[in-house]
C-alpha cells in the first residue's frame, strides 16, 4: 500500500516536470525558428531574439520546481527519514501536480507562438522591444497561476 502511494506521488512529479518541460521545449522551439529567420537578415538582433526566445522556457522550470517539491514531500530526496504515504495521500500529491503539468504544457506552446510573433515585430520595429516582451508575459500569467495553485495544493496536503 505504501509503495503505491509513493508511486503516485512520483507519477505526479514526473508529469509536472515532463509535460511542463515538453511544453517549454516546443514553445522555445517555435520562438527559435522565428528568431533564426530574423537573424538571417540581421544577426545583430541576437540579444533581443534570445531574450524573447527564453520567455517560454520558464514553464519547464516551474514544472521542475513542483516535481522537486513533490518528491521532497515524500522524502525521496536528501536521504531523510522514511515518510509513509498512503494511497490517498499519494493520489492527492498526484492531483496537486496536475495544474502545472497541464497549464505549463499548453501555456508554454501558446507563449512560444506569441514570442515568435513578437520576434517578427522587433525585426521591423526594434524600438518597441518593451511591448514585445510584455505580450508573451501576458500568456505566462496562467502558467504562474498554475504554479501557484500547485504550490498551495502541495502545501496543503498533510502527511
Amino acid at each position: 500500500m505504501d509503495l503505491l502511494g509513493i508511486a503516485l506521488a512520483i507519477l505526479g512529479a514526473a508529469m509536472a516536470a515532463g509535460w511542463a518541460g515538453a511544453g517549454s521545449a516546443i514553445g522555445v522551439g517555435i520562438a527559435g525558428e522565428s528568431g533564426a529567420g530574423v537573424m538571417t537578415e540581421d544577426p545583430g538582433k541576437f540579444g533581443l531574439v534570445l531574450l524573447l526566445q527564453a520567455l517560454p522556457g520558464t514553464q519547464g522550470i516551474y514544472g521542475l520546481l513542483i516535481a522537486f517539491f513533490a518528491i521532497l514531500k515524500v522524502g525521496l530526496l536528501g536521504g531523510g527519514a522514511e515518510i509513509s504515504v498512503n494511497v490517498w495521500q499519494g493520489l492527492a500529491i498526484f492531483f496537486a501536480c496536475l495544474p502545472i503539468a497541464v497549464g505549463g504544457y499548453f501555456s508554454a506552446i501558446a507563449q512560444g507562438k506569441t514570442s515568435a510573433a513578437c520576434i517578427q515585430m522587433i525585426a521591423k520595429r526594434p524600438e518597441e522591444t518593451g511591448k514585445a516582451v510584455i505580450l508573451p508575459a501576458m500568456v505566462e500569467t496562467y502558467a504562474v497561476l498554475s504554479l501557484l495553485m500547485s504550490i498551495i495544493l502541495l502545501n496543503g496536503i498533510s502527511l
Partner: protein
Amino acid sequence: MAVAKLKKAEFYIYKSDIDGVLSALQNTGSYEVVPFSSDSGPEVSALIHPDFQRVESLLGETRFLLRFLEPHFSDPVSGIARAMGEKDDLSLEEGKALDAKTDLKAIAEDVRKLERRLMEIRSEVTQLDSIEQLLTSLHGFPYPLELITSGTDHIHGALGTIPADQTEQWKRGAASILGMMGEYYTVPASEKEKDQIVALFYDDSVSGEALELNARHSFNRIEIPPALKGKVEEELAAIAEKKERLAEEEKLILEKAAKSAEGLVPTIRSLSDFYSVLKDKYLTLSSARSTEQVVMLRGWIPEDSVAEVRRELSIYDSSIELILSDPAEGDEPPSNIVNPSWCLPFENLTRLYGAPKYGELDPTPFLAPFFFIFFGMCLGDAGYGLIMIGFFVWFLRKFKKMPTAFSHFFKLFVLSGISTVIVGALTGSWFGDLVDAFGIFSFLRPLKNAPVLLNPMENPMVFLGISLALGVVQLMFGLGIAFYDALRKKNYMGAFADTGGWIVFLVGLLIWGGLAAGVVPAGAGAIGKVFTIAGALVLVATQGREKTGLVSKAVSGLLSLYGVTSYLGDVLSYSRLLALGLATSAVGVIINMLAGLAGGVPYVGWILAVVLIIGGHIFSIAVNVLGAFVHSLRLQYVEFFSKFYTGGGKIFAPLTYNTNYVRIKKENQDQ
C-alpha cells in the same frame, strides 16, 4: 507635473542667416521643428539647402566605405564600449576642416575598384571550382578534350552520362554501329554510382545512328567549356595554377584593404557623423516655408529653455523674429518628460509603454515605488540582489560616459537589486538556503536569521495575503489618480460618478469581506454595507448615462457592476509576487541540494559542488531577473496603467547632434 510645458515657437529668419540660426538651434538641442500643415497657406514650400545634395551623396559614400572597410579594421574601442559612450570628441570646426581636407569621392573610387576586382576574382574562382570538379570526375580520360569541344574535320565527340545499368547494352550498341568508324569510352566508376560517364567518338557518316543510340539510352550531354583543349590532367594543372594566382591577388587586395582601413576608418567615421549632423540640420528646412527673403519655421521649445535659445540667437537679433505662444486647441505638442532625479531610472519604463500625451500625467513617479517593491518580491533573494548591485555598479563605473538612457536603465537594476536584498534579508533567502545547507557557512546563521520576519516557504498563505494586499493598494492608488486627473480636467461626472463610484463600492466590499474574514471589527460592518450599497447605486444610476431610454440606461447601469470581476482578476494577478518569489528561492534550494548531493562523491565531490553552486546560481539569477523584471513591469502596465493611463504621446525630439561614432562638442558662444 512631469510633462514639461512647451511653447509654440515661430521663427521668421532672413534667408542669408538661416544656416547660422539653424546651427545655433542644433547646438542648443531644444527646438523641435514641425512641418506646416498643408492647408495653412499658399506660400512656396519645399526649401532645399544648396549644400544638401553634396552632403547626402557624401554620406552615402561614407556608408559604402564603412561597410567595406570596417570588417578589415581592428577597432581599439569595442562595439559595446562605443555604444556605452566611449566616443572621441569632434568639434564642428574639426569636422569642417576634415571635410575640406578629405577627397572622399576619390577614396571611394579607389575602394570601389578594389571591391569590384575582389568580386571578379571570387566569381572566377567559383567558375574554376566547378570546372575542376567536372574534370576530376573525368580523371584518366585518355583523349584530348578538343575532340569533344570542337572535334576534327570528320570526327565528332559526345560526352555525357547514361544510367549505370544500361552501360553494357550501350557498349554493345556502340561497338556494332561504329565498327571502324569511331571509338567509345567509359570512365571507370565505382559500383554505387547511378550514372555512368561515357564518351562516344564517331565519324560524320554514322552520326545519325550514334545520336539515336545515345537517345535510346537516355544520354545526358555534359557541356565542356570550349576553352579546354588538352588532356584532362594538363587542364587540371592549368586550373590549379590559375587559382593560385587569383588567391595571391586576393590576398594582396585584402592586405591593401586592411591597410587603408587602418588609416581611413577613424576619419570616415568622423566624417560620417559630421555629414549626418549637417543632413539633420538641412532636413529641417524641408519643414519650413519661405518667401523671397524670409524663411518661416514652426516648432516647439520647452518653456525652461526659451531663455537659453534667445541667448544663443542673440547675435542674429536684427535679422530674426521669434514669436512664442501657448499650445492652441488642435495642436499636438510633443511630450518632454522631466522627472526629479529619484525616479529618473524608472522613466525608461514609462517610455517603454509609450510617452504620456502633452498635458497628461506622467505615471513615472507613481509606478516607481511599486516597481521597486514588486521587483524585490519577485526576485526575493538577498544574495542575487547583491550580485546584481555589484555587477551593475561595476558596469556604471566602467563606462562613465554612457548615454543617460543607458545609465538610467542600469541604475534601475541597481535599485532593483537593493530592493531584492531588503526582501531577501527579511525572508531569510541568501542564494536559496546556502547558509543553512552547508556546514561551513554555519557562522553566518545568526546574522542571516536576525532580520527574518517571514519565511514564505513555510508560510506561503501569509505571503500571498501580503501580495494581494499590495495589489489592492496599487489598484486603489490607480483609481485615486484617475479621480484626481478627472478633477484636474474639470470632468466632475468622470471623477465622482465613474471613479468615485467604484472607489466607494470597492472599499465597501473590502470592509464587508474583512468582516466575513473576521479581521474587521463588527462595528465597521455597517459602514461597509453602506459604502457598498451607495457605490453600487451611484454606478447603476450613472453608468448608463450615454444610453437613451430609461430601460437601456438601467440595464447598462446594472451590467456595469459586472466590472467588479475585472477588479477581482486584477487583484488575483498580484499573486504572481508570491509565486515568482517562491520560485526563485526554490530554484536556489534545489541548486544547493544538488550541490550537496554532488559533494558526497569521493575526492572530486567538492569540485563538483562548487561548480554546481556557481553555475547554477548564475543560471538562476539570469532566468529569475528576467522573470522578475517582466512580471513587475506587467503589473504596472496591465493592472495599474489601465486605471488611469493611456500613453500614446510623442516624445519631444529636438534638432540636435545624433551621432554613432564621435561626440560633437557643443559650442559655447560665450567663450
